[in-house]
């Protein structure tokens, strides 16, 4: 039982790191511009299919394709901000929700037409790591490692770079930041691009572990919402820790209950956090 629980927890934590990184993107966008990006799942799917296309048609090693996926995700988000978000950013929240939802439907619709709903798989294996009786998949380990590195890079970026400080300033008080000469609109666009970049990289990492379809991003999106609430809306680092907590739960619950109970308990936790500590475990902005 101990071995089983340890193996499950480790598997869950590794996956949780990826969930956390995905949620950081959602959290950043919410924190900076108070927009809930309902195309978050679709962005993850774009990352999955981007990796698939580069691996299958261009023969590029999936891990070497990571920078391309990241740049592509960032540019897409940057463009999406100007087209779908900028004009509604000062409107009531419903407008931005509908706008990002519309983008989500466009991406899924176009993706279904181009790629169909058939499952895809990046057939790339890097073996397993044996720790005594516990065996961890190599792809899961690498994906978690990359997720943690990306999270660390984001932390350094936000706290140690000039642009990162600008982003934090705009998140804190947009009007005051404008008065200080910070071009807030450009900062918002860049923040949105970073948020979608994190989502697409998370999708890419998931595609190296599991098969996927055009609808797969949608199944990870609710997890990102749970993690954002768990970690604290507006706190990207809190999202990473929230992801690890969720991953640990996903690993531990099946050791005691049928796997079908995992989403039930996940969303029960979501509701509990909203009721008991609505600012999340690590506070909001």
């Amino acid at each position, binding site marked *: 039982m101990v*071995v*089983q629980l340890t*193996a*499950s927890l480790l*598997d869950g934590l590794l*996956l949780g790191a990826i969930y956390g990184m995905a949620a950081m993107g959602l959290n950043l966008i919410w924190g900076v511009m108070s927009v809930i990006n309902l195309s978050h799942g679709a962005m993850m799917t774009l990352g999955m299919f981007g990796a698939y296309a580069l691996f299958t048609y261009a023969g590029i090693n999936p891990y070497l394709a990571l920078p391309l996926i990241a740049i592509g995700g960032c540019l897409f988000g940057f463009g999406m901000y100007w087209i779908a978000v900028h004009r509604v950013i000062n409107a009531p929240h419903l407008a931005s929700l509908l706008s990002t939802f519309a983008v989500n439907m466009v991406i899924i619709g176009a993706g279904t037409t181009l790629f*169909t*709903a*058939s*499952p895809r*798989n990046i*057939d790339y*294996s890097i073996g*397993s790591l*044996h720790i005594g*009786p516990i*065996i961890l*998949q*190599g792809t899961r380990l690498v994906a978690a490692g990359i997720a943690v590195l990306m999270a660390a890079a984001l932390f350094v970026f936000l706290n140690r770079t000039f642009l990162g400080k600008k982003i934090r300033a705009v998140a804190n008080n947009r009007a005051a930041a404008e008065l200080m000469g910070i071009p807030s609109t450009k900062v918002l666009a860049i923040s949105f691009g970073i948020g979608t970049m994190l989502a697409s990289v998370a999708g890419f990492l998931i595609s190296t*572990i*599991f*098969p*996927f*379809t055009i609808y*797969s991003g949608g*199944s990870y999106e609710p997890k990102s919402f749970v993690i954002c609430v768990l970690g604290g809306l507006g706190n990207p680092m809190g999202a990473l820790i929230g992801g690890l907590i969720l991953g640990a739960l*996903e*690993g531990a619950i*099946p*050791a005691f209950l*049928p*796997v*079908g109970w*995992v989403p039930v308990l996940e969303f029960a936790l979501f509701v509990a956090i909203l009721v008991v500590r609505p600012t999340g475990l690590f506070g909001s902005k």
Partner: protein
Amino acid sequence: MFCTPVIRKNCLFLLVICWVCLITAGCTQKVEQSKTGGQPVERTVIIGFTASQTGKFNVESTRQINGLNLWIEQVNSSGGIRLGDGTKIKFAARFYDDESNKDRVQELYTKLISQDKAEFLISPYSSGLADASAMIAEQYSKLIITAGAASDSTHSKGYNLVYQVYTPASRYLTGAFNMLSKLDEKAHNAVLIYEKDKFSTEVCAAANKYGAEKGFKISLFEGYDSGATDFAPFINKIPKGTDAVMGGGHFADGTTFAKQLFEKGVKAKFISLLVAPPEPKFAELGNAAVGIIGPSQWEPLAKYSSELSHLAGQGAEWFGPNISEFVAAYKNKYQEEPSYHGAGGYAAALILQKAIIAAGSLDTQKVKAELDKLNLMIFFGRIQFDTTPQMHGLQKGHEMVYIQWQKDAQGKLVKQVVWPEEAKSANALYPAH
């Protein structure tokens, strides 16, 4: 007020004219027929079905449709079928993409029947989709032959026009327990991890019961949601020292499950998964495929389907091409070895052909009567339908074979038939790892 004698007289006159016209038309038709020197009428019969050209059943469904299309091509190129009245019929397929979606199946079969005027139907691949199509077929009194569908429960709904080609789910994995008992008398514990869909749930529920009756301890019996991709939570629950892992669902999840079992280093001596292993594409898993066993409705190597061994003592009538003829034709057309999904699609149409020939008619009730009487041996195996009201149309003649992926002398992955013993092409690799 309106029925004056003049009007009544005119109406009567018009009625007489109409009657004369009808009689004349009938006579003219007969004259025209005789004028053509009694040339048989030719017509095209529409066979309607949906194909999962997209979605999770894409791989299996494509093979099934390949088999069906091969049959249509062969029957038409040999001149079609001649009915009792001399009519020569050829066949045409009318199909749509059901996207592996049950709701689409119902819409599309309604369309096939009411708009496309399909006279006979073949089911889509998979028990869930076939069940949806069977309901529509029965509603519209259209005969349907289900290929790719093994669910027992479809035939417990009181349908009269639904006929099953595949061995039913309740007999899918029973042979796996029989084989394991024969290979290793000491094997006594197993786990069943299965997709929570109609087919897999029925197979594994029956296997669970059968395994317990055979003295096995089923230490884990758990289902996963359709579309699940992370099997680590289930694999981590497999107790150490488990002799057998069985279950799975369809191709996509079965392959992923097999791959993750390998990556997690599960050392079960016997692994038997549904649907995925018999597909040639399963070999793309490489070393993860070695030792994996799969129940199969049919295999090219199976001596079990030999007409010689089965004709004797069962009173079955032989019909259609033999195994090597079918395999050669399929390979020639599609450049790949046929799986049982392709063979099943062909078999469904072949059975329909036999029933139409025997009936000498396209009339649904006459064809149905012939299907009820059928005791047939084809390249696919024995075909005979249950005709009891409780389970009408259930396949009771056909048996499963079990394949296993093994490496040949050159290290290449090949599929061997390992069970039943009278049908095997190689001994089973045991333990699998």
